[in-house]
């Protein structure tokens, strides 16, 4: 077994391995209406993370006994392509994918006005074709846009981003290496107009004050994504380029 000498993740002047500042997110591209068959769809790239989302519905709930008399049910599947990760992910849903499908669905249930469509179902499919950190929040961001693209009434768009703790510092939108080697990863999604959190998870250790700092940083990133979503809805796509790369 080789001795691993691991390089530092943050330089002395506060830059990250990929050159970003601590509060800087990766380049983003968001596009709406990318898949023709679905009722609404979106595509997102955040760094090398690449995700499609599509919405079908509202349509008749099936099987029937799942139908709710006073509202629509929302189904969500977050799924990764076999080639999306290092190594090869075996086909079939992993426990991780099942959990993420649940938290993303619950986030979206918070913004969709389900009462408009009694006895109906809305299906949301998120397909990660490349995973390079931040897939659940990027997937949720795309899914929210796909819902709007489908014309489904929502209280607000929602967008998400991860924040991390790396070598004691709070960073926005951690890269895969920062996620793996860092102390904490915290995916956050918000409905900005509602001033509310729709998704929140933490893996790793943080104090109360670090949490507050992280949440504020996430809010900043989410604001950027939210604007991109709104632009994409109009002209069908929008991009964000970090200042340093412009």
């Amino acid at each position, binding site marked *: 077994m080789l001795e691993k000498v691991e390089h530092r993740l943050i330089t002395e002047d506060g830059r990250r391995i990929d050159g970003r500042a601590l509060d800087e997110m990766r380049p983003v591209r968001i596009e709406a209406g990318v898949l023709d068959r679905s009722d609404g769809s979106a595509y997102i790239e955040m760094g090398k993370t690449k995700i499609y989302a599509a919405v079908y519905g509202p349509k008749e709930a099936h099987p029937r006994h799942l139908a709710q008399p006073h509202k629509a049910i929302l189904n969500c599947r977050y799924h990764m392509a076999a080639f999306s990760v290092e190594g090869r992910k075996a086909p079939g849903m992993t426990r991780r994918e099942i*959990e993420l499908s649940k*938290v993303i*669905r*619950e986030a979206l249930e918070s913004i969709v006005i389900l009462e408009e469509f009694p006895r109906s179902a809305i299906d949301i499919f998120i397909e990660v074709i490349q995973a390079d950190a931040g897939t659940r929040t990027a997937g949720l961001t795309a899914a929210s846009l796909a819902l709007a693209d489908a014309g489904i009434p929502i209280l607000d768009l929602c967008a998400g981003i991860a924040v991390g703790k790396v070598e004691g510092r709070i960073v926005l939108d951690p890269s895969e290496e920062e996620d*793996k080697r860092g102390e904490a990863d915290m995916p956050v999604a918000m409905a900005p107009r509602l001033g509310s*959190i729709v998704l929140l998870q933490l893996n*790793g250790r943080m104090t109360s004050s670090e949490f*507050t700092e992280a*949440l504020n940083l996430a809010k900043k990133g989410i604001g950027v994504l939210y604007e991109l979503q709104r632009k994409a809805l109009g002209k069908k796509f929008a991009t964000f380029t970090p200042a340093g790369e412009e």
Partner: protein
Amino acid sequence: MYRIGEKPYPTKIMRDKLYELILRGERLDGRGPYQYRPLELKTAIIEKADGSAMVNLGGTKIIAGVKTALGQPYPDTPDQANIVVNAELLPLASSFFEPGPPDEKAIELARVVDRCIRESKMLELEKLVYIPGRSVLVIYIDVYVLDYDGNYFDPAVLASVAALATAKTPLYEVKNGEVVLNPDIRPSLPIRKVPVSVTIGLLGDKILVDPTSLEESAIDTSIVIGWSDEDEMAAIQKNLQGLIQLSVMDEIIRVSREKSIELRTKLMEAIGRVGAPL
């Protein structure tokens, strides 16, 4: 997809009733907003397990058992023992639970318990490696919900942590490059932290600790926070649909921290570690 056993529709009437009460600092079962239900914790109830614990939190009853075996480490952690957490919402426990393989709720429960234990660095996993990259201890934690009256997260973490903290496991040693069992001793697992989780329900901007099944059906949403110790969180999971107002987050963290200290004290007493250094 993956929504077996959905919770019943939160009735508007019940929500209004609860909200009215909580504005007065009251709850249906007479508790205060920040008050846990009575907690009972018993360990070493399954002789065939290395460690076990039964927790009653109000009307929710959970059993956790720990078994260990020799195994290979995961490729990305060659120098750590493995933890495998499995949770089942037994159909015994509620008419909302169905037989069959773990559904999304059971998987979420297992993964939250896993995170509380793993991310808090509760166990010194690096001490349970016999041959790096080849032979480590595999620690199985199996959690069963036997009776369900709301909030399975906190008692599941309590039962799992208690079972781990009181487990007596086989001792393996390396002799001539082979891993062999030393049948004479059954040591405890090396414990570094004692994580606990605190589940908080939300009604608008009102907090409601340790919700019952009835309350769960009416609250807006809920959040589980795992604490490694008095100062550090190790896991958070917003669960259930619904919004959390950003303005309540500070209070949620503050309350959960306070309750975590209370739970940890009870846990330490129950496992006989009061004041003992870990």
